[in-house]
């Protein structure tokens, strides 16, 4: 589907110099799959830009707030597949407040209009409601692939809607989400004549599913390649499923809790031996020794074994690994210990990726898990290792140096020494030399997570050597601003930087001014950055969104959590209320009513109070101000009320939330409402207000705020201004003329 060729010809410049028709160029470019390549291609010339736009079928948006769905649809008219990522990664660890945003719904609304034939949607860390899932199911008749990773806000009702309406569904992949699990009748919603499913992953769910419905579904979907079941599926169930689907390539078992009779055991063993094509095995909840041998016949062609929910011991792991000669990726729990990792080193010569998760991450006194010895053992045996995620309780500089010498091809090196700020346990020195060795030796390094006791020296090394580094995670590290400066000045390909609990302050933050626009995002929490620093950053870099999240009870001037990202659409309109502006006070006027929020965002309504009328002509008195007036969003009826009172609502200071909203205020015919865009060009008010109500979002100095110039207020057109009311949310207001 798409516009006819004639229209397209007119669309393009008719006097271009391209030697061959657009269709040929598009055909050639349609073979390009990587978005990086496509971005490069689109910068060559206008023709190529257009051809690339027309031929792009899959669009990847790494930060949903960096662009708007309208812009995406305008540029890429023929998209069939979208990948969308929302919240900052640290939301996985509860560092981002609830209702932060990343609602998928506004995207779906635009896609329903512009991409009605959308086939694939892959979401990561987005807020997804049941309504959105239903909307998706109903509005996209060709919809085939749904993947939700680390999303939240929906329940199994949403899944029921997908099952009911998506007649062409081939993939339903629900991973690691915050689901409200209302139990399993959603599976029965797949119609009896529905047979197209190829991928079904519901390993996330906890409650029972309707097994009969599942069995029927699996038996009639002959193309099913991937089945990842939840814990509620018993071994007996599993046997029945495997009998229906011996063609599976990826299997996630349910619970491996021992409960079979000898006869059932034999049947299940037989079922596993029929799985000739299995390349991935996961699940294995409650795996216990007597039942592991069941899996052996299915292991011959395994390339990925995910044991990260199985509390195995070293010998159990070893027995299993002996069955998997082609293993490339292995995820385990640290219950296997160093001994288990020795077995990995001995049995997995082709291993490329290893992830070792902690079974007891929060129990400090626990004396088990893995140490540097295990990692070393793996590095000696698995020379092709290039991806590692390793949680341990002790490490040494020497061990890491040896490990990277054995495996110099690391692209992803994520080491988590679980006790924050822990030194090399043998020498008691910082772990600087360990990571120095990593960045010096592993020239292809793309992703690095550091831990342990680290001084600025680590970051000097990183800045100096990590030329291909794109993602860097830092926690409880560094000695001074210099550390962060080194990172920002050094790593030319840096795209994502996440920092927590480090002594980096404003100087460090501001040293990256030129860098941030070439990055996707920066996260800094529990560092020494202040509100003033953030303001400065936002002021200097208008194309960055600077979001501050404050913790309860923290000092006003501290910027507890800062999230900075580039955006072509400016500050977002759906930010949650600033928690720290707690004291709701009324400006001596009556509370009106609750206005519905602009975006459909699941969450509490934010009461918006409206000024009704002034108490005396020419004067607006106020005793205190309801801080929520400046919250998002303000509806147009509220704006209208303000206009009727002759009040010009102006926001100043560099609070991204407020500016974004101010831009959206509609102009009423009375013209009394103006917006002021900070950092942009001067805004000329249509009419000159006589009264000005300045509502700051943070504590600020009125004298500075009201001066013209770089702090943002523009005075053109305010010649008639007589009264300026500056309200400080924390104190009584000040009236000036």
């Amino acid at each position, binding site marked *: 589907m798409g516009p006819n060729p004639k229209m397209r010809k007119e669309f393009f410049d008719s006097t271009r110099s391209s030697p061959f028709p657009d269709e040929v160029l598009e055909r050639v470019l349609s073979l390009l799959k990587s978005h990086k390549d496509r971005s490069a291609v689109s910068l060559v010339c206008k023709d190529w830009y257009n051809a690339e736009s027309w031929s792009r079928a899959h669009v990847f948006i790494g930060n949903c707030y960096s662009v708007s769905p309208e812009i995406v649809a305008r540029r890429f008219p023929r998209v069939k597949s979208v990948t969308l990522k929302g919240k900052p990664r640290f939301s996985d*660890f*509860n560092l981002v407040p609830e209702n932060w945003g990343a609602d998928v719904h506004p995207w779906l609304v635009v896609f329903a209009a512009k991409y009605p034939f959308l086939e694939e949607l892959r979401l990561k860390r987005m807020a997804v409601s049941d309504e959105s899932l239903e909307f998706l199911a109903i509005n996209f008749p060709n919809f085939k692939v749904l993947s939700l990773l680390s999303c939240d806000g929906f329940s199994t009702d949403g899944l029921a809607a997908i099952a009911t309406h998506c007649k062409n569904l081939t993939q339903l992949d629900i991973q690691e989400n915050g689901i409200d699990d209302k139990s399993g009748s959603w599976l029965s919603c797949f119609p009896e004549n529905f047979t197209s499913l190829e991928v079904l992953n519901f390993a996330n769910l906890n409650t029972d599913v309707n097994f009969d419905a599942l069995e029927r579904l699996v038996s009639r979907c002959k193309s099913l390649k991937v089945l990842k079941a939840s814990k509620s599926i018993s071994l007996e169930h599993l046997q029945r499923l495997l009998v229906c689907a011996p063609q599976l390539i990826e299997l996630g078992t349910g619970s491996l809790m021992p409960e079979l009779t000898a006869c059932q055991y034999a049947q299940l063993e037989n079922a596993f031996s029929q799985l000739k094509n299995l390349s991935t095995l996961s699940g294995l909840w409650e795996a216990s020794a007597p039942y592991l041998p069941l899996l052996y016949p299915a292991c011959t062609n395994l390339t990925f074994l995910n044991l990260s929910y199985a509390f195995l011991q070293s010998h159990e792991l070893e027995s299993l690994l002996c069955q998997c000669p082609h293993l490339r990726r292995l995820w385990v729990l640290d219950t296997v210990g160093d001994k288990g990792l020795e077995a990995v080193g001995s049995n997995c010569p082709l291993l490329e990726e290893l992830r070792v998760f*902690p079974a007891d*991450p929060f129990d400090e*006194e626990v*004396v*088990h898990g893995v140490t540097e010895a295990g990692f070393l053992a793996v590095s000696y045996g698995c020379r092709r290792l290039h991806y590692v995620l390793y949680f341990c309780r002790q490490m040494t500089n020497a061990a890491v140096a040896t490990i990277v010498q054995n495996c110099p091809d690391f692209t992803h090196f994520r080491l988590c020494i679980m006790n924050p700020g822990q030194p090399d346990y043998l020498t008691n020195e910082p772990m600087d030399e360990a990571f120095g060795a990593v960045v010096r030796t592993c020239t292809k390094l793309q992703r690095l997570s550091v831990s342990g006791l680290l001084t600025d020296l680590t970051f000097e090394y990183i800045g100096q050597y990590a030329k291909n580094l794109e993602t860097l995670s830092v926690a409880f590290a560094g000695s001074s601003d210099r550390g962060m400066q080194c990172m920002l000045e050094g790593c030319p390909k840096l795209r994502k930087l996440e920092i927590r609990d480090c002594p980096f302050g404003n100087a460090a933050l501001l040293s990256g001014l030129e860098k941030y626009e070439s990055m996707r995002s920066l996260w800094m929490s529990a560092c020494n950055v202040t509100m003033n620093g953030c303001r400065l950053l936002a002021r200097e870099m208008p194309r960055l969104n600077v979001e501050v999240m404050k913790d309860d009870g923290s000092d006003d001037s501290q910027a507890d959590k800062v999230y900075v990202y580039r955006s072509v659409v400016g500050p977002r309109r759906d930010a949650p209320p600033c928690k720290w502006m707690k004291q709701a006070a009324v400006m001596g006027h009556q509370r009106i009513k609750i206005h519905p929020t602009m975006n459909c965002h699941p969450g509490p309504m934010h009461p918006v109070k409206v000024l009704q009328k002034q108490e005396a002509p020419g004067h607006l008195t106020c005793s205190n101000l309801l801080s929520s007036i400046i919250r998002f969003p303000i509806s147009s009826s509220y704006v209208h009320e303000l206009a009727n009172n002759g009040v010009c609502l102006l926001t100043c200071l560099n609070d991204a939330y407020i500016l974004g909203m101010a831009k959206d205020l509609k102009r009423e015919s009375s013209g009394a409402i103006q917006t002021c865009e900070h950092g942009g060009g001067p805004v000329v008010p249509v009419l000159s207000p006589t009264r000005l109500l300045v509502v700051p979002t943070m504590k600020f100095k009125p004298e500075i705020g009201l001066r013209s110039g770089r702090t943002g207020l523009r005075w053109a057109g305010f010649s008639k201004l007589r009264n300026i009311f500056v309200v400080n949310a924390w104190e009584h207001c000040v009236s000036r003329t």
Partner: protein
Amino acid sequence: MEVVKETKMGFEETELRLGLPGNSGGGEGEMARKRGFSETVDLKLNLSSKESGADPNNLEKINSLQREKNLLATDPAKPPAKAQVVGWPPVRSFRKNMLAVQKSSTDQEGEKLPGGNATFVKGKMFSSFTIGNCGSHGLKDFLNESKLVDLLNGTDYVPTYEDKDGDWMLVGDVPWDMFAESCKRLRIMKGKEATGLAPRAMEKCKNRSYK
């Protein structure tokens, strides 16, 4: 109960935080610690109660309490455990919850065992402590027989275990190393249930001198 008093003192002095994994949902580290503190202090040790099956979660907590207490006893200079930090170590909530659920569900499974009046502690929990899993420079395994037995000192319960061959034995019948290698499951049995396990099991239970 003496055990309770001792552990209480231990906590107040050193402000240890003991809670089940996954407790750090939101809130500041200190807040979480305080909450955890009051949770653990309020534990009721029901070991000598008449009702069937003490709460396995309590038992798990008791075990960790006991571990803490003994750790303190051996190393009084050790600094107090740090308060849990929000979002650290960086393990996804989903994974945290799944692991915690698995652990507690396997504890509960134990109550379904025949003779289900016994509390049940999954052997795997202890197998992780076996000597051999620690590095040569790591802290040595500090769990030993007397700790297991001390838990039940003076009560009607005896610790028993199932060994590799499927036989149920009384803890203390074999040397510790042999026990640690062969133990597959631990079970706290009521004294009278333990008759027939080993000769004079009941008498042993009454007469043995606990350290």
